[in-house]
């Protein structure tokens, strides 16, 4: 690439700081008129919608809920630390009350008995609110896919799923940035759209019903998996 170096001469004077300073002094004094005023306004005002501005600030000031379920919570705690510093994005104030929190990070396995408790905490949070499902157990029950657990999609809406067992703090950070994009209204598409892979979903035959129900479930009396 060719690098072009030239000295800033009088030609670039309107961009000069001193010149702009004088221009704004003139404007404040009321001396600017007509075309000069139009140009001045055009240069110094940014237009946006209130909605966009609010979303921008919401995405940069999330209060997560102080809430851990299992081993993923250990990884979740480390995102507050210095290495992957969540405070860079204004998310660092973990709130101990659902009334003050905007984000629920489900970090760990959710048992059948815990699900109503979590649902209640989620209901107590004020709108707008978001939820991240962290780790395999919470999204698909992972290694504990048995009678005791329930996936989080079944009882509350989840915005971002972070896979892993447990996910590294960087992975959670990636999920958090994704959620921030989503809140600010420019969420990236899913990986299928990004990698141009639409139409590659898993396909099963018409008569194949073995995947409809729970995985790992055997017909009554069959103890092959026991």
């Amino acid at each position: 690439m060719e690098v072009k170096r030239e000295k800033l001469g009088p030609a670039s004077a309107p961009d000069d700081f001193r010149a702009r300073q004088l221009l704004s002094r003139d404007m404040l004094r009321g001396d600017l008129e007509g075309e000069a005023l139009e140009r001045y306004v055009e240069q110094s005002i940014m237009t946006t919608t209130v909605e966009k501005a609010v979303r921008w600030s919401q995405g940069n000031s999330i209060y997560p809920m102080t809430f851990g379920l299992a081993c993923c919570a250990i990884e979740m705690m480390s995102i507050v630390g210095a290495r992957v510093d969540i405070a860079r994005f204004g998310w660092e104030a973990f709130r101990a009350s659902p009334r003050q929190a905007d984000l629920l990070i489900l970090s760990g396995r959710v048992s059948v008995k815990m699900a109503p408790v979590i649902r209640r905490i989620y209901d107590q949070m004020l709108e707008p609110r978001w939820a991240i499902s962290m780790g395999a157990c919470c999204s698909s029950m992972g290694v504990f896919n048995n009678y005791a657990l329930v996936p989080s999609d079944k009882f509350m809406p989840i915005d971002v799923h972070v896979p892993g067992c447990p996910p590294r703090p960087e992975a959670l950070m990636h999920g958090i940035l994704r959620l921030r994009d989503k809140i600010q209204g420019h969420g990236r598409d899913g990986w299928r759209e990004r990698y141009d892979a639409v139409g590659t979903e898993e396909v099963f035959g018409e008569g194949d019903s073995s995947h409809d129900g729970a995985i790992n479930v055997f017909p009554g009396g069959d103890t092959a998996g026991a």
Partner: protein
Amino acid sequence: MPDATGLELTAHELRDRNAESILDTNFHRGRAELRVAPAHVVDVLTGLREKGYTFLASLHGVDYYPEEPRLGVIYELLNMHEVDRLSVNARLHTDDPRIATATGLFPGAEFPEREVYDMFGVVFDGHPDLRRILMPEDFEGFPQRRDFPIGGEPVLFTYNEEKSYGKWQ
């Protein structure tokens, strides 16, 4: 641990006390085990407690699936003076599994017995408060039995997202 001879002597003493109580003894890999008739388990536990096995270290259930009787309730006893451990194993059939409670002798058996009831469905007669302890109270079935299905909820993937029930709208 009592050695094999010590185990036989203990079994003899208990048979003198109640002839029908001990069905068998088993000494395997250094572990002494008494197989007892479920109807006389409290008798056996009382006798052992008088002998010095005053601490019930654990009480748990097992499902020995192909064998019959299938269910086992195992009491792990500890003699703290001689540092001897002894297992007491009572076998039960799955249809109407009932056994007398040990809470009269060992009050600490209350929660383990509730757990065995929760997971295996063994009813402890005389238990002060026999409810489920781990699973929700309206849960059906006994999940640690071998004939209980392992899997639970279907997992939502892209292929079954539309068809699967219960997706939060």
